[in-house]
């Protein structure tokens, strides 16, 4: 059995009535695409923010065999964890190119410059629209384009683990499917992905494993290939709401 890339053990987060996590424990194996599903307010965003040290949390987080529980956000980012935040988080006043440059911000030095240029070509191949929108303000892009930019920006850091917070949110179904197809492709190329989603069918089509989060607790873990029907899904997901 391979060592998990990410191990979350007994994670508690949040305070009082605010969306919180209780005793959340799960692993993400290297090369996996893991989905965390749950309704609004289940704690999905809090989970990702806690993994990124953007919200206070108790419990153990181990990344690639190393405890990162005490690490600050920027150190976790430098270690190879990239977050595509809720609402995309692209910087509106900055151009597409500047947003992408920020993705590679932690990679500095002469030797890295060639690598960064190479990665830029690669994300432009992955999302050709971003090359066309290079000098446009990110705020003027469509929702789908902004989501692509947010993912591309995260890729520019050459992450070892990509965290995505509801990438389908606010997107037309066709665009959302397109985004998930690209995530599946990235995963096939070896990128480890942890995605939280409300739209279960979309995530289940790509994920190797899915956890269901409800009111801050992981209540079920499923292998999507074992889910045969929409009824199974409803029982698992909607039925628990």
């Amino acid at each position, binding site marked *: 059995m391979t060592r998990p890339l990410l191990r979350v053990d007994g994670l508690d987060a949040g305070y009082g009535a605010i969306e919180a996590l209780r005793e959340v424990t799960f692993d993400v194996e290297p090369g996996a695409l893991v989905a965390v599903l749950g309704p609004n307010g289940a704690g999905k965003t809090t989970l990702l923010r806690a993994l990124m040290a*953007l919200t206070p949390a108790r419990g153990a987080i181990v990344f690639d065999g190393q405890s990162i529980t005490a690490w*600050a956000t920027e150190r976790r*980012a430098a270690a190879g964890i990239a977050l595509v935040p809720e609402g995309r*988080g692209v*910087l509106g006043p900055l151009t597409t190119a*500047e947003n992408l440059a*920020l993705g590679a911000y932690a990679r500095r030095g002469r030797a890295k410059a060639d690598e960064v240029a190479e990665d830029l070509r690669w994300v432009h191949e992955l999302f050709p629209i971003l090359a066309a929108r290079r000098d446009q303000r990110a705020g003027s892009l469509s929702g789908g384009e902004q989501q692509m930019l947010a993912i591309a920006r995260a890729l520019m850091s050459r992450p070892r683990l990509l965290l995505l917070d509801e990438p389908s949110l606010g997107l037309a179904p066709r665009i959302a499917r397109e985004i998930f197809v690209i995530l599946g492709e990235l995963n096939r190329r070896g990128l480890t992905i942890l995605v939280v989603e409300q739209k279960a069918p979309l995530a289940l089509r790509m994920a190797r494993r899915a956890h269901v989060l409800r009111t801050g607790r992981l209540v079920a873990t499923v292998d999507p290939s074992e889910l045969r029907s929409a009824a199974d899904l409803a029982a698992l997901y909607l039925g628990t709401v």
Partner: protein
Amino acid sequence: MTSRIVMAAAVVAWLALLRFANDYVLTVLVLSGIYAIIAVGLNIFTGYTGQISFGHNAFAAIGGYASAILTTDRGWPPLVALVAGAGLAVATAALVGYPTLRLRGHYLAMGTLALGLISYVLSVQLEGLTRGFTGISGIPPLGVGSLVMTTPRGYFVAVWLLVAVATGSAWLIVHSRLGLALRAIRGGEDAARALGIDVTRYKIQALAISAAYASVAGSLFGHFVSYISPEAFGLYMVVLLFTMLFVGGIGTTAGPVVGAIVIGSLPEVLSGFKDYRELIYAAVLIVILLFAPRGVLGLFARRRPARAAA
């Protein structure tokens, strides 16, 4: 393209003023230029990094007093004193920035306000050094070697060349790798952190850089007026600076300069109204802020799209 036209127009106006304006007009414009340099620096910290500093008068005071003390008591050449003052301001910014810049929003505003108040109290209380309310007079004019500036015309040339240098260097900073990080911080500190940006470190750098601009301007003020006192660097300076930024256009390249010219010359333009001057001044400011919330520059840049939308 428009920026080239604006720059060409500015150069033409500058040459015309240099040729035709009298000493009174030139003096007003020199003081506006000195304020413009502080505003350009503050704009890096406030406009592009999104941080509030109500204590920039402290950095101007450091420059002004360093120049005054070092040139009068110690006989240092003005330029050396100016550079020393800037160094001291940068060091102070780094020292004060470390604890202060962990604060956000209102807390940062209050923290920097305290810095401005402390600097005022110190300039009054440290009489042995600053001569308290009496102030320091007899500050020699600015000069390099045998070239000494004695007329408003000379200062007009020097100060406005420095305004151009300040504006140009600020543009370079904002569009550099550092500037990219600063603009990311303005977009959101959490998001910047998640991108691997050391937010506190860059905020300190931004404050230190903007402190250098303020300090240089404070030195220029001392040399030009040849006298400084605590009042010159009081909190009113902060009020003026923010009015300049908002009137000119915060977070734009030329906004601080435009704002400094408008706010610096408006009281003089209105001097014919005598008793009603302050009233009209306030009314003009309110009108500008109501109808040009993005500043005078924003008004020009946005005119057509705004009409199309309406």
